[in-house]
């Protein structure tokens, strides 16, 4: 079992003919992910390797039955691409694009409210169910299939570090989800915690947060109410100065809100096993799970 992505996932790639789109499509295909279509307006009828390219998401979905879109469209056009995917009828949208204006994402988020599809990202590495399908840019080989741990994170390479340490300790993953480093995103920690809690094969959860906003605090309130599985938590940015954006658009301490200390305190208060030192995360997980 897994969450959001499984053996029935059929992927279309928006922006498949761009440099990033091509490279990562090939990586996903090599991992065994069924990539059934690409979309690049104006290039319909062509193909990328063996993948047919369409002008619109609707056409791609109608012709191929794709149910998931992975988006590599550049920031100025990415909000449009997400809304097209939602309107085109896919169930899952994974937006990799970094640098989408906040105002665009706020419009997208409000637009998606009455739609049934799920958005992961933007500004994220994507989602992987090891051994089954990879919809994203993470390196496949560092993952270990078969579970039992679910991983959810706001970061990219930091997640790779976490997954690598789990794998080194012989701990596999059910699904790894990067929810992205932007201030306004689709799927949040709570959505992922709920899915992992309901997934029988996931017996433990690793949650990786960072400074900025209150998503981790909100997640902790949810953990207290609903999550019975053990959770290991890590927060990046203890040494980050206030008022500075630390690379991710969402990673900023504003006044006294969004600090790593507050997030760690919230985690401890609800019984999350807090990892204070990233170098020892694998060991902590081995003792908890």
């Amino acid at each position: 079992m897994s969450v959001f992505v499984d053996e029935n996932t059929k992927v279309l790639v928006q922006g498949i003919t761009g440099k990033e789109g091509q490279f990562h499509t090939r990586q996903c295909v090599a991992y065994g992910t069924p990539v059934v279509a690409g979309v690049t307006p104006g290039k319909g009828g062509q193909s990328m390797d063996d993948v047919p390219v369409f002008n619109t998401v609707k056409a791609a979905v109608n012709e191929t039955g794709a149910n998931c879109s992975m988006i590599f469209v550049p920031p100025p056009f990415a909000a449009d691409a997400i809304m097209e995917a939602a309107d085109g009828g896919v169930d899952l949208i994974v937006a990799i694009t970094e640098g989408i204006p906040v105002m665009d994402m706020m419009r997208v988020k409000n637009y998606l409210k009455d739609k049934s599809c799920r958005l992961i990202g933007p500004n994220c590495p994507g989602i992987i169910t090891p051994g089954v399908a990879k919809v994203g840019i993470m390196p496949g080989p560092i993952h270990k299939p078969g579970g039992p741990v679910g991983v959810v994170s706001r970061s990219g390479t930091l997640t790779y570090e976490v997954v690598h340490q789990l794998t080194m300790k012989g701990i596999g993953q059910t699904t790894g989800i990067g929810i992205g480093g932007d201030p306004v995103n689709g799927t949040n920690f709570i959505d992922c915690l709920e899915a992992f809690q309901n997934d029988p094969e996931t017996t433990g959860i690793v949650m990786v947060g960072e400074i900025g906003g209150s998503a981790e605090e909100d997640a902790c309130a949810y953990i207290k109410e609903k999550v019975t599985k053990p959770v290991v938590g890590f927060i990046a940015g203890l040494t980050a100065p206030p008022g500075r954006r630390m690379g991710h658009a969402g990673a900023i301490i504003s006044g006294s809100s969004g600090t790593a200390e507050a997030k760690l305190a919230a985690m401890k208060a609800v019984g999350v096993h807090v990892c204070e030192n990233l170098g020892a995360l694998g060991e902590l997980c081995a003792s908890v799970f």
Partner: protein
Amino acid sequence: MKIHEYQAKELFRQFNVKVPEGGVAFTAAEACEVAGTLGGYPVVVKAQIHAGGRGKGGGVKLAQSVQEVETYANEIIGMNLVTHQTGPEGRRVGKVLVEQGLNIAKELYLSILPDRATAKNIIMASEAGGMDIEAVAEETPEKIIKVFIDPLAGIQPYHLREVAFGLNIPGAAMKSFTQLLSSLYRLFAQYDCSLVEINPLVLTAEDEVIALDAKMDFDGNALFRHKDIMAYRDTDEEDPLELEASKYNLNYINLGGGGNVGNMVNGAGLAMATMDIIKQAGAEPANFLDVGGGASAEMVENGFRIILSDPNVKGILINIFGGILRCDVLAEGVVEAARKTGLSVPVVVRMEGTNVEEGRRILAESGLDLTTAVDLKDAADKVAAMVA
């Protein structure tokens, strides 16, 4: 991206948000010239830097004559202004805004910003104007009015009324206030602002509503569609190393605390975590540097050079988890940079992920004195021991 008060007020004027008469001056003579056009005294002389708390730091003065304008302008231009937002090192003032004094009846607070949790824009207003709004929010949250605006539907007249009645705006000033707020929202939305703040917004004895102060911050990700705002960028307000890094698309932040370990990492989250683990190992991180997912050998080389231009740096930790950025590309950049700049401080390299074997081979065969680490903890311990 932040801009100066005088620039924000130019935008306010374009959008019919009322501001005091005035203009910017780069010398005392220019300041006197501007003061002469304002039709009387008092006149306010305000330091223009990208930080708040200017009044308390001595950067805002009330002048009763042209002689006083000259004295204050001479005092402020060229001064090193220290406020709670500049840090102890302060900021050099290069220009002042000279404005007419107003007949203030009441000071209010007004701001608009995106709310990440609800994905709506939020208008915050308070009758406790002119004060530190964080302190007001902390001590007397009931004094702050919050109105949420759906970004798809935009601002409606009832939003304007809700704020106006909440602030007890007198009937005679109602129209002036709602017109100002509606214009301000239009400006905020049109230019992808991450903050528009007026503190204080003043109600004059003549029942006019005027923005006495103006603070604007723009979403850096949206500047591609606002070339006119890019023209407002003042590089004098930026850290010289950060400015240099931005030329190469490097995400570098000088932590400014005299840290002794420079670091170069791919990915923002891992970069923050690397700073943290350096501190936990007993050393002090000097910077944040995310070379990004698509870094080239040239970017790595420039990053290396920029880290080394910080004189406090006594050791460097390079931590790369290869994903999109391949370890062999990184290794080539490091070798090239080390050959060009020379290794003046010890360097610890920790690599994992895509093409790691090839990367390690390049480093080993370079003949350079680089220390390799087996994992993150090992890397942090090694670099901390080297700078101790």
